[in-house]
Structures are given as C-alpha cells and as structure tokens.
C-alpha cells in the first residue's frame, strides 16, 4: 500500500496515537 506504513491492529494504533500525540487516519476498504 505505497509508502504509508499502515497499522492493522486497532488497539496498537490507538496506543501509538496517544504516545505520539497524533490523530488516526482510518482507511476503510474491501480487499482487492
């Protein structure tokens, strides 16, 4: 998925967002 390093674990994404003081970009999609 390009140069973006997507998290696939929601809980880890939330923890990272808190640690790094960032917001979440959520990408909702179907498999190709």
């Amino acid at each position, binding site marked *: *998925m390009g*140069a*973006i390093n*997507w*998290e696939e674990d929601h809980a880890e994404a939330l923890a990272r967002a808190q640690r790094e003081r960032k917001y*979440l*970009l*959520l990408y*909702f*999609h179907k498999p190709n």
Partner: protein
Amino acid sequence: MDTVTYPDEQVAAYVGEHFVPFSASMGVRAHWPLFRSHHMIWTPSVGFADHRAQMHYSSPGYLPPTEFLSLLRIGRARCLMAWTRNAEAARELEEAAAVENSFAPEALFWLGVAHFLERRDSAPMYRAWERLTKRYPESPWAARTYREHWSGDMPRDL
C-alpha cells in the same frame, strides 16, 4: 486509492508526519465491528479519529492526491477543533483554502468556524465566510453560511 493516491509522495509524507494510519479491511473479520462503530456503509472511506477512538470527520469515495491532501488537512483540523486547538486548525485550513480545488470552499467554511471558536469573536468568522461567498457563491458550503442572515450585521472593517 492504493495505486494512485496513497503512494503519492506528498500524501505519504503528510500522513507520516501527522497521523497514525490504520487500515480496516472487510477481508479481516476482526475489523468488522469497526465498520459498524464508525458508521461506515461504503468503501473506500476514510475517517479521522482521536486516541479515544472518537471519530470527528469522515469522507467516502476515491480522491486524487491533490484533493486528498486538502481532505487530510480538513480532517486533521476537525480533530484539532474537537480538542480546542483552534489556532492550529485555522493554519491547516488556510493551507487547504489556498489550493484551488473542490475542497477549498469547505476549508473556508471550517476556517470561519475555527476562527470563531478560537476567541468567540464573530468578526474573523465573517471575514472567512466573506472570502467563501465571494470566491464560491454557488458552493453548498457558501449556502451553509446563510449570508442574508449575517451580511447586514457585518462589522465595518471587513
């Protein structure tokens, strides 16, 4: 999105700097509850949420890189505004409004809101909305300002 927009250098750099990117796939059973909890009925869609999993903005469909960059700025600004970081939000929205594309009217609308929320002062909000209604008079975002309601009360220094 995967073949054009996300690989774009500017998009990837902006996402890396400002967001934790999370991919929720209908192909992953563990992700299904997230579609429901975030009210997602269409793919692809993007959402913007805080670390408490509260989503503050979402957008359906495909977008080319230039439009998507503007969307990222608006989405980040909406999150910042939800956390009363209105001055930072206004800077993001000015950047989005400076790019002449289909998201500029929305950026100007929310810029007015961010200015108001920053100081509870309607004058800078009206200035942003004046820019919106002059540049994009036919935009649905201009209609949302309901100009007839406020133009008679505009401060003289506008």
